[in-house]
């Protein structure tokens, strides 16, 4: 029911996004024809240009272009790529899988690393281990993903002659072991970036919970310290951690753009980047729209998990 209540606001947001994407991309100087034909555009007669514009539908007024884009988008037709002629939806389907896998692995690694280091730090606030944990958090926050990726690529390929991303990309269905190897480093880079804020949130949430009366009670009645830390303290600190993870998931989708490029993964980020460089309106527009829908969906899911974790939230 909570979902239905949020539906109108979600729909307005998505409508706003579609208008925004459409407007931003229309500001781009140079249109599809000049970009797909290059300097050959110069030899075309005005009539030929006119008929090409008609063919691509960019002779119509903006409102008309927007409406025709939206109506076909909603019926599942995302247009087609000007350069290869392939339907955008076919490209998007495989790219979406890559990015989702990357985002999922990145988040899992991030949560694992972040919560562990957060717990490690919070055991004794102000101690050397706390300092070490916080120092890791700060570095993970400050070292850009592209620096970390470039360093990993250099060290792995040159010192260890190991670079699975140098081979052609394999989906998990074609070659699972290869796929996992190709996903390892990119997920790690994203995971480390996500771990930093999760670590900070975990640390402060744990420190807050530890002071509560029911924790003292648990220790007092003789529950093992390990059990208290995992079942009582961590369990009751989960809400801010879940929220932070949800927020970071979105960041991760953005980080995927750079990481996919460096590790040669054919995901959504790279698809959008390539399409932007080739000025393919249809591909960019529809891909960004798919991306935004994904993002909004993830926010809804976070919200749902949030309610599951804490039944007090109505």
């Amino acid at each position: 029911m909570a979902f239905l209540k949020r539906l109108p606001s979600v729909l307005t947001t998505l409508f706003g996004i579609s208008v925004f994407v459409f407007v931003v991309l229309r500001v781009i100087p140079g249109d599809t024809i000049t970009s797909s034909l290059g300097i050959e555009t110069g030899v075309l007669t005005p009539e030929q240009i006119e008929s090409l514009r008609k063919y691509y539908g960019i002779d119509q007024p903006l409102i008309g272009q927007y409406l025709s884009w939206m109506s076909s988008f909603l019926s599942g037709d995302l247009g087609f790529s000007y350069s290869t002629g392939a339907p955008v939806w076919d490209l998007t389907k495989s790219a979406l899988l890559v990015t989702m896998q990357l985002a999922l692995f990145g988040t899992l690694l991030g949560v694992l690393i972040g919560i562990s280091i957060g717990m490690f730090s919070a055991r004794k606030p102000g101690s050397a281990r706390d300092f070490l944990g916080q120092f890791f958090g700060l570095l993970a926050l400050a070292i850009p993903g592209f620096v970390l990726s470039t360093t990993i690529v250099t060290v792995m390929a040159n010192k260890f002659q190991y670079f699975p991303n140098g081979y052609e990309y394999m989906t998990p269905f074609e070659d699972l072991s290869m796929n996992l190897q190709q996903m390892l480093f990119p997920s790690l880079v994203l995971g480390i970036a996500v771990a930093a804020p999760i670590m900070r949130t975990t640390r402060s949430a744990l420190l807050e919970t530890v002071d509560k009366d029911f924790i003292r009670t648990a220790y007092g009645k003789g529950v093992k310290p390990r059990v208290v830390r995992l079942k009582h303290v961590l369990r009751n600190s989960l809400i801010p951690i879940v929220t932070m993870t949800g927020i970071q998931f979105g960041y991760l989708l953005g980080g995927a753009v750079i990481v996919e490029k460096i590790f040669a993964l054919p995901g959504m980020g790279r698809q959008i980047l390539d399409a932007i460089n080739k000025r393919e309106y249809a591909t960019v527009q529809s891909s960004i729209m798919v991306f935004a829908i994904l993002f909004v969906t993830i926010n809804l899911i976070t919200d749902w998990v949030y309610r599951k974790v804490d039944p007090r939230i109505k």
Partner: protein
Amino acid sequence: MSKETKAASSKDWVHYYFKSTSGVIGLILVLIMVTLSIISALNLAPIDPLEQNPVDALKGPSGTYWFGTDQFGRDIFSRSIDGMSRSLSVALLSVGIAALVGVFLGVIGGFFGGWLDGLVVRASDVIFAFPAILLALAIVNSLGNSWIDTSIAIAIVYTPIFIRVARGPVLTVKEMDYVKSVRVLGFSTPRILIRHVMPNVLAPIVVQIALSLSWAILTESGLSFLGLGTQPPDASLGLMVSEAQPLAAFAWWSLFFPSLFITVVVVGLNLVGDGLRDALDPARRSSG
């Protein structure tokens, strides 16, 4: 509030800030980077960042070339401080715009409410629905590659954060008795906003500015890494990392120093942000 108590309380938070070691370290790191940028902006760099010395290509760090040279024999130290000054300019301009526009919209929306507020909140939701770098990428691609275009793109991305940060406290403050009473006294709305509402939302905004500066630097270097920011031969930290990719295996300095610069300034700004947050928030002082 009299002049004396105001002065005392501001001195108080400065004093508190300097008591925190990490805050001081952060400030020192940021000041070092700012100084280097100014040196570069005044053309006082030891070697012209664009000057090519093919004979000295890919030399390691030495007395002449402190950070070594790149594949064209250009001095990496001079290029790094030049890149830093570009990154900081973009960060300052973009966060400046985002803070001004965002705080204005947030305060107006929060204070007046109604359809105006609804519109502001909806618009920021829309921008929030994009991953930052993706949005910046699309906008930069529409606008162009100059540093002003990059700044505008980053400003658009970060404006909603300032809207939220300013709007929240305004919603609380406008219901407070002291604001209600000056309204009853018939003070003009701009005066109430500037003299009575703004001072109470300033602290979170100042903290947000420090943190946003660090994000802006990361976004700027990410964009130029992707080839969508500063164009060669001009120096930019992101572009230098990207150009170092094929060289790093045998010329570690080409990757290491530009990366170090980005990391140091981002660490510094984050420490300053954390320090300001602790110093400006009385509740955190007693607990921490």
